């Protein structure tokens, strides 16, 4: 089922959580709402679910306006950040809940319920834990149970609020790959909220970058990362070095008298050399080198006293044989220039 959000506004007292937001999620899509805390992404998700009511605007499922339908009538599967499993019920009972509360006419028989729950527990690889209580499970297992519970009612859309937010780094990584896989298998239209750009870029087909109650850009991970619409999107998706600069005849000058332009360079687009190359370089002194991990991260102080972060491959680092406190020459390989729109938070 496709989702369309039209001109939705929501305020909590004086705080505007959503400001005339539009969003389209195609049938079978997996869309990430990405943004810092307070950007309105969770509010948008809750409005789609019917857990929150918009002040104005509408939500449509398959072109039909469902703004006035209650959460129960919308047939959404909702997965909460802190799982929200029913603590007094076993894993089995949790997953069966949505089927058990149906009216007698539409309720499956006990045998059908058992079969459906078994099938879902199989899907989340917890078939041996059916009799356990939520507190006896790990965080990752709990979140998988929450997912199975949401899928049990065969929802028209699946909505996930920071689904991996409460998990530790390694489990997060496993679970988000698993979610992607699950989505490919089940194919239900899904929207998930995250503040983690890696998660959004890795899992989603489409990323909607949100900031201060508005959607800044919607696009594929490749589009939002490589062709950011504005400085906020560029800044939010990955690490950046920010320079103030000006643009003359299509040439960007960094650290010149600022004329309202912001120049961004990602750490891996800065190249360190021992000798100046060409005319595009500045001097810097290395301050701190972190060689743990696939990339070597170097922090350096520029000739005008700003800090820059540079990433390079291990081979390059070995060839350079860099140490702390050395004078180097840094050349930007690629940069992004935006008019200073005050949005690069």
């Amino acid at each position, binding site marked *: 089922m496709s989702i369309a959000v039209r001109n939705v506004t929501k305020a909590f007292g004086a705080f505007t959580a959503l400001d005339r937001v539009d969003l389209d999620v195609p049938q079978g899509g997996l869309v990430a709402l990405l943004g810092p805390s307070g950007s309105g992404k969770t509010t948008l998700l809750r409005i789609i679910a019917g857990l929150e009511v918009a002040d104005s605007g509408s939500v449509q499922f398959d072109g039909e306006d469902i703004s006035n339908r*209650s959460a129960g009538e919308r047939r959404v599967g*909702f997965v*909460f950040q802190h799982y*929200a*499993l*029913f603590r007094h019920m076993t894993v089995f009972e949790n997953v069966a*809940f949505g089927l058990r*509360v149906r009216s007698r006419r539409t309720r499956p028989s006990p045998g059908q319920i058992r079969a459906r729950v078994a099938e879902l527990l199989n899907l989340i690889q917890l078939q041996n834990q059916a009799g356990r209580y939520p507190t006896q499970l790990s965080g990752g297992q709990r979140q998988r149970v929450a997912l199975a519970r*949401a899928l049990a*009612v065969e929802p028209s859309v699946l909505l996930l609020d920071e689904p991996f937010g409460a998990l530790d780094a390694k489990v997060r990584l496993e679970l988000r790959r698993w979610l992607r896989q699950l989505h490919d298998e089940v194919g239900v239209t899904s929207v998930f909220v995250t503040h983690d750009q890696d998660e959004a870029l890795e899992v989603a087909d489409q990323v909607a970058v949100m900031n201060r109650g508005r959607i800044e850009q919607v696009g594929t991970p490749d589009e939002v990362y490589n062709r950011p619409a504005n400085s906020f999107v560029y800044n939010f998706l990955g690490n950046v070095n920010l320079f103030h600069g000006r643009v003359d005849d299509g040439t960007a000058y960094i650290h010149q008298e600022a004329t309202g332009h912001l120049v961004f360079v990602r750490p891996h687009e800065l190249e360190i050399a021992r000798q100046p190359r060409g005319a595009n370089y500045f001097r810097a002194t290395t301050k701190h080198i972190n060689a743990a991990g696939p990339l070597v991260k170097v922090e350096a102080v520029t000739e005008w006293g700003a800090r820059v972060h540079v990433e390079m491959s291990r081979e390059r680092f070995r060839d350079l044989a860099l140490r702390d406190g050395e004078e180097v020459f840094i050349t930007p390989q690629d940069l992004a220039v935006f008019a200073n729109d005050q949005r690069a938070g």
Partner: protein
Amino acid sequence: MVVIGESALVRRLLIGVSVLFLGAFLMAPLAVVFAVAFGQGVAAYFASFRDPDTLAAVRLTLLAAAIAVPSNLTFGVAAAWAIGKFEFWGKSFLISLIDLPFSVSPVVAGLTYVLLFGAQGVLGPWLTSHNLHVIFAVPGIVLATIFVTFPFIARELLPLMAAQGNDEEEAAITLGASGWQTFLKVTLPNVKWALLYGVILCNARAMGEFGAVSVVSGHIRGLTDTMPLQIEVLYNDYQFVPAFAVASLLALLALVTLVVKSAVEWRAGKLRSQLA
């Protein structure tokens, strides 16, 4: 056994003081109640309950509790749900109101009912003209009992419901459960032990209340005397065995309450450790 690093002497001293204190102020009076009640034999003890006034008092106490406890159960769950799960204007004021019966002397509470519903009271003439009797009658006793016991259940549930938040209810709603199903299958099971505990405390207090009920009762023997009031009446008549026999019933109630309370706490604790 948790070692807290105090010497054996200090430990024994502390335990000894506690046991002595409890013995002197709790166990000894309890023993006296039963000793006097059975002082003239078992036959005399049971004969005390053949007095129609005493039987009427027992019935009235049961009636008052049977009305007050369900009323406060309904009120307590509703108030705790509203306060624990929703944000609204005047919330802290409502919490203070719930605590009011704890802070007001029961006698004052009884007096306010007299001033409100009594013959010289605000609503007195209207009630008299409609032939309704509140003060010096059963309705007044029930009202006074409800007043003094209404914080018990709400107070037990409030912190728990507030701590549990709304997530599980929201999950139930998105899964298609109705409001009533959500309440019965999610909200209520999550608070059942606290609820049971609150009901037990509320019941014990409802049956044992003296001050507020004493003011509104008017002490009409066989009609408006509850068990605590009947005990006072019997005692003032120098009928010690019957007085202490009735008192022994209230003491038994207290013991049963303690046992049930311990069982509930044990059950809740076991559930927690089982889950942890």
